[in-house]
């Protein structure tokens, strides 16, 4: 028996990275702006989508991919708002991956879509490692979770371009110090934007909506330039 050592140096997630790159090409060809929305369970991802769709539908073509371990409850909530929504059930899987998005895209008509929002499985750990082909990673931290979350789950906070701090209407009742949230995000990800919102009252939505509208317009321009 000959003993040998084989240097490999291969990214373990390379298969997913390849699929994510294929998705990204598809999105860019169609001029669609794509968001990967991540948070812990119950932080308000679906509520944020409902409010965002209410405010923007009519002006922007929106489609949603819903990721959950089980049930089609969230996709039904989104469909009630009058936009296309497809549900992915991961059957125990803790995150979405590039392949699941490819399958979901087959079920969507992207012809009049300007904005695709992918709602990831509620989890502050695993979704951070798996690119889906999105343009921006957005995360929600709800004030009921506490100001210590950036310390405990640094990767997701480090890679998101916008952090939405939700449920700010509850700030008087919970132990979440916004100064600490800002300080901790500032250390992890100083370029990330922090927007304080309440999906319940609609407070703070204006900057979030204009951020989306700007991004969507930018991607539409890219499409116009190509065709």
């Amino acid at each position, binding site marked *: 028996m000959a*003993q040998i*050592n*084989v240097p*490999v140096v291969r990214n*373990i997630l390379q298969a997913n990275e390849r699929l994510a790159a294929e998705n990204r090409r598809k999105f860019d060809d169609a001029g669609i702006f794509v968001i990967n929305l991540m948070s812990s369970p119950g932080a308000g991802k679906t509520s944020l989508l409902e409010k965002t769709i209410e405010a923007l539908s009519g002006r922007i073509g929106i489609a949603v991919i819903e990721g959950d371990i089980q049930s089609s409850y969230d996709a039904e909530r989104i469909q009630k708002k009058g936009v296309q929504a497809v549900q992915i059930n991961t059957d125990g899987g803790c995150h979405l991956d590039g392949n699941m998005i490819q399958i979901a895209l087959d079920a969507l008509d992207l012809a009049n879509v300007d904005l695709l929002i992918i709602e990831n499985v509620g989890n502050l750990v695993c979704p951070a490692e798996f690119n889906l082909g999105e343009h921006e990673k957005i995360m929600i931290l709800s004030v009921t979770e506490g100001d210590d979350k950036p310390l405990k789950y640094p990767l997701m906070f480090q890679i998101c371009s916008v952090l939405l701090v939700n449920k700010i209407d509850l700030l008087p009742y919970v132990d979440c110090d916004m100064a600490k949230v800002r300080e901790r995000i500032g*250390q*992890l990800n*100083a370029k990330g934007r922090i927007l304080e919102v309440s999906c319940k009252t609609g407070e703070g939505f204006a900057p979030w909506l204009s951020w989306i509208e700007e991004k969507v317009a930018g991607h539409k321009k890219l499409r116009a330039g190509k065709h």
Partner: protein
Amino acid sequence: MHELSIAESVLEIVTEEARKHGLERINRIKLQVGELAAVVPDSLMFCFELLRRDTIASEAVLEIETVGIVARCDQCDFSFEVRGQVFRCPRCSKPVMELLSGRELSVSSIDGETGEDDGTDQRSCCS
């Protein structure tokens, strides 16, 4: 929680590399995992041990090398190790986003045995 799918990918990669290099048995697999990677090494080891049964890597030992977080400041070009989750240049205190290391999740090498007995004690062809 996603360590199981990572362990699956590791097994796929090493099986493919073993075939490519004519290995009949894999003894050792070295991985690099960055400190910022959302992976728990113990959990990855556990998942790998579940999956390796009845494969070419059924006896393989998984060695995980942790890689520290190193960032480079694009203002003053200073490279430094990130400690205490502060992504800020210690020299000019500008926020730093460019990472030189810390997010690794890769297979770095495999030790194994080929079927041929070449009569020599060839421990390593490359290192």
